[in-house]
């Protein structure tokens, strides 16, 4: 087993919504250039956990945390850290595709760049094309970059959101059930993407679909009732899980 420093990791992280504790005392790390899957039944806290990694959790009513989240060794919740700037280093793709409806395809992808201060038009064009290629969308939209983003299909819109997220070159990309609202074709496209994307990014994906986790991820963590029950290389998790609960979930006995 190679010892690698995780790109982003948590230490005794707990997350609450007011009085309700959604995530309990989780310490988990994610290495670069790998796809890490978080699985577990509904309500187990995996999405909440994900949202603490880019400080989206605090946007919810009563969204508090305790513990630490360290990106390259720095505590992202330190008082002098700007959450906004952090989110430019940790990007997120959501369950339902959310392209900006008033912007064109091009402008959608460029949105993260413009907000980051990129001004040179040539530079932006380059990055947009590269991101769209990386998201396997370029060929389908290269002739209509100025069209409204809403003209795309659901699967295309989600790949657009992925392009938008990776354009500003974040260090970590979080995906919260990204294929949940897509048809099987769209799902397959996105999954294929992940293999390519992990060459450049650290990827953490929440999925309720175990087969998907088995297909795309290098390591898998199983969450249950707010705790991280077990984590390990995907193959090992699915063939020889150590914990009883993990095995019960994987074999479909609940959830």
């Amino acid at each position, binding site marked *: 087993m190679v010892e690698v420093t995780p790109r982003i990791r948590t230490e005794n992280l707990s997350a609450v919504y007011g009085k309700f504790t959604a995530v309990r005392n989780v310490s988990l790390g994610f290495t670069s250039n790998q796809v890490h899957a978080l699985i577990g039944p509904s309500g187990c806290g995996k999405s909440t956990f994900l949202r603490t990694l880019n400080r989206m959790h605090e946007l919810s009513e009563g969204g508090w945390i305790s513990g630490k989240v360290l990106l390259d060794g720095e505590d992202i919740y330190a008082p002098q850290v700007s959450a906004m700037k952090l*989110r*430019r280093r940790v990007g997120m793709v959501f369950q339902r595709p959310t392209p*900006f409806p008033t912007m064109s395809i091009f402008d959608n992808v460029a949105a993260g760049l413009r907000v980051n201060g990129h001004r040179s038009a040539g530079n932006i064009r380059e990055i947009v094309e590269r991101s769209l290629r990386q998201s396997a969308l370029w060929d389908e939209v290269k002739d209509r970059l100025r069209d409204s983003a809403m003209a795309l299909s659901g699967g295309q819109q989600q790949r657009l959101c992925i392009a938008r997220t990776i354009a500003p070159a974040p260090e970590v990309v979080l995906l919260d059930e990204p294929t949940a609202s897509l048809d099987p074709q769209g799902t397959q496209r996105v999954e294929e993407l992940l293999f390519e994307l992990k060459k450049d990014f650290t990827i953490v994906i929440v999925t309720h679909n175990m087969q998907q986790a088995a297909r795309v991820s290098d390591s898998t963590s199983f969450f249950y009732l707010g705790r991280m029950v077990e984590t390990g290389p995907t193959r090992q998790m699915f063939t020889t899980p150590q914990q009883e609960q993990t095995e019960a979930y994987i074999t479909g006995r609940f959830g």
Partner: protein
Amino acid sequence: MNFDRRKLRRIRSNFMVGLMIGCVVLAILPLLLILGSLIVRGAGSLSVAFFTRPPVPAGETGGGVVHAIVGTLMIVGAASLIGIPLGIGAGIFCAEYPHHRVSWISRFVADVMNGTPSIVVGVFAWTWIVARQKHFSGLAGSAALAMLMVPMVMRTTEEMIKLVPNSLREAALALGYPRWRTSLSVIVRTSLPGIVTGSLLAVARVAGETAPLLFTALGSQYLSFNVNQPMAALPLAVFTYATGPYEEWHRNAWATALVLIMVVLVLSVVARLATRRRFELNG
């Protein structure tokens, strides 16, 4: 026996439906009659001269209402310049910080203002501006109209912004958008068609208001571009002509009213069409 009762119930049901259809007819009737009268009695007087000439002395023929058209444009224009930005700003605030104390207060007050008779607002503008300046002015009229517009625009803006799904806001924030830019470039931009509609409808509403102008702008028989003096306006002209003693004036009243209605209705219809189309685009 059961059969009869069921039949009776069915008859009663049909009777009630028939009654209701009668209500619909009765309700639509005034609209048709009013529009009909306006066209029949007013269209005849419409001419290029009517739109471009100021009024002539009482008793003479010819002349037009350009003074009132200009007056309405200036008074309503000035009111919109103040009222729309204030209203939109307040609406954005209430939508973005919905639980803030200021939002609760603003919303409550806006609802109170929306229900206030426009003549009371006119009295307020009179005591605020006219009494102090010791003269009537188009500006005072604009102030009264602006005060009517702000709560209207505020409420429609807030409602339009609330329609934008929260997921859009999250997507922008997750990209690293600062809060203010999320609000403006994403949320407000998405709801812009609806906001524009609300503003246009407010403009249409105040363009037809007479009461608040009665003793602020006062009205005038002369073409003037000076907002610091009494100024004519279309609704005021209709009122003056309608309540005047001359036949000619009565004819003018109908024509002016037709012009006023056209302005108001066109504004209203255009405003709504704008939103309808956009909603289809947004899917």
